[in-house]
């Protein structure tokens, strides 16, 4: 089975966001970067599919040369080879999706995994958009996946207040959600092996952006409110304030 996983490099979740000098992106000074957390579920699921059906896993990432770190992380978990689409420019979702679709067309995988969203821009759009550009179906926010020998699929995805079960067929794109699996840690052996696995570098094909960021803003600072007390005696006042002042209950 030909398997592809698309991964992204993002600021870690503890990052305190500051606005950069351009006023449109974050200040990258002192920021630690990690493999997008949802992509770990994507890589893990790819490994499980390979363990069941055999095949090869290609990891693809678009970004600067530093994105090779997240590719190596996926290789250390057990993926076979990497492709870095080099590009330092600011791209919108559409333009990233087009560049990824170009490469994916060439590989023509039976199944493609993404994290359900990247925790920087939180678009949650890539699996659907790349699927459309490739002309294959997609299922997002997937928490359970069964693939049968005949290529049919049953997936469960999260929706408001529950889950829905989706029927589909390979080839397909899956957007992995937390809960799908428990990602493995790269073993020392895996980390050593990853160093000798091939990572091909290419220039990402350019496409024009359709969405333009005009400005990045920080949320208005919240001022700390009132401490109403230190025990259950404060409860009556709290309920009164919620009803009469805040008017929320």
């Amino acid at each position, binding site marked *: 089975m030909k398997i592809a996983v698309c991964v992204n490099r993002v*600021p870690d*979740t*503890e*990052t*305190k966001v500051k606005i950069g000098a351009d006023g*449109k992106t*974050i200040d990258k000074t002192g920021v630690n970067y990690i493999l997008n*957390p949802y992509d770990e579920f994507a890589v893990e699921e790819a490994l499980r599919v390979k363990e069941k059906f055999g095949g090869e896993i290609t990891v693809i990432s678009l970004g600067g040369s530093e994105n090779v770190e997240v590719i190596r992380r996926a290789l250390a978990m057990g993926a076979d080879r990497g492709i870095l689409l080099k590009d330092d420019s600011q791209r*919108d*979702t*559409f333009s990233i999706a087009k560049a990824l679709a170009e490469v994916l067309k060439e590989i023509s995988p039976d199944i493609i995994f993404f994290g359900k969203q990247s925790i*920087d821009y*939180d*678009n949650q*759009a*890539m699996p*659907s*958009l790349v*699927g*459309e550009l490739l002309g294959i*179906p*997609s*299922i*997002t*926010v997937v928490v359970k996946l069964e693939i049968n020998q005949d290529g049919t699929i049953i997936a469960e*995805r*999260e*929706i*408001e*207040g*529950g*889950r829905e*079960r*989706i*029927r589909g*067929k390979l080839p397909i794109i899956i957007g992995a959600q*937390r*809960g799908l699996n428990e990602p493995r840690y790269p073993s020392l052996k895996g980390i050593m092996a990853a160093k000798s696995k091939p990572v091909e570098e290419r220039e990402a094909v350019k496409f024009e952006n*359709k*969405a*333009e*960021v005009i*400005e*990045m*803003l920080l*949320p208005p600072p*919240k001022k*700390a*409110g*009132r*401490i*109403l*007390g230190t*025990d*259950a005696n*404060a*409860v009556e006042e*709290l309920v009164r304030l919620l009803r009469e002042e*805040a008017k929320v*209950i």
Partner: protein
Amino acid sequence: MAKRVLTFAEQREGKFKKSAFEAVRTGKRVADELSAEFYTLVIGDENVEKIAPELGDYGAEKVLIVQDSRLGQYSLTAYAKVIAEVMQKVEADYLFMSATAMGKEVAPRVAGKINAGFAVDCTDLKVENGEVIATRPVYAGKAFIKVKINSDKKIFTLRPNVFPVGEKDGKVASLEKIEINLNDDDFKVVAFETIAATQGKIDVTEADIIVAGGRGLKAPENFKLIEELADVLGAAVGASRAVVDAGWRPHDEQVGQTGKTVSPKLYIAVGISGAIQHLAGMSSSKVIVAINKDKDAPIFQVADYGIVGDLFEVVPALIKELKKVLGK
């Protein structure tokens, strides 16, 4: 040339979601500001014709209905095709949808079909010099970006619970059925079964009130306090990452950067210290209440009202007081 705006009104199992009314109301407002013609689209099986007139109450004027027995079950591929084709038919320049589980999945596919730029999960839409400027959260709400779409066709999804529904207009919308040719190949993925989380459970992304618990609860069984408080308030139950990671609560309740970003009217954080990842996901709540033993917990920096105290005393007292005041 006059612009045209299309809003997709999402229904599931023959019922509109509240977010569908939010989308229609917002679509209508933006259409008016753009002096655009306004259309609303409803898709589903034979039953949607019965519920479509309801949209007149929220600003819908021309309701377009696409009916097919196969559309009674959600299918990403078929829904995206129908929406894209209706957009072409009415020559819509703008599409508005809710950023629900369905909307978030469908909108990018429609965008791919009609080559439209998009902005997802918008929390504000303004018309400036004839352009729609969207504001949307990034980094789970640690920052916001203002976005302008430069392509001819533009798609926006709207975060549920943020845009006002307004008073009912009591207006009558015109209904028009549209035929879209669908074949079996359009149903490549189909939802064939829905599994409700737990009977009556409210999802955190849709809730007006959320009661969330953290490590301060000490043990999973103590979450019954949170559930009881949520029950009195008709609220959803939320959880911090720590307790989800510990396996105390399901991950669909997790609020924060790698969980759900929420914006309810009232957020009650119980035994949650307020790590930066958690604050990112909930700090846009309208009113925040924190109950925590540690007076230095970061949650108090964003809380409107705080009680520095033992939750095992405060929460039962709060439940009792609310029952009394709310007459339950």
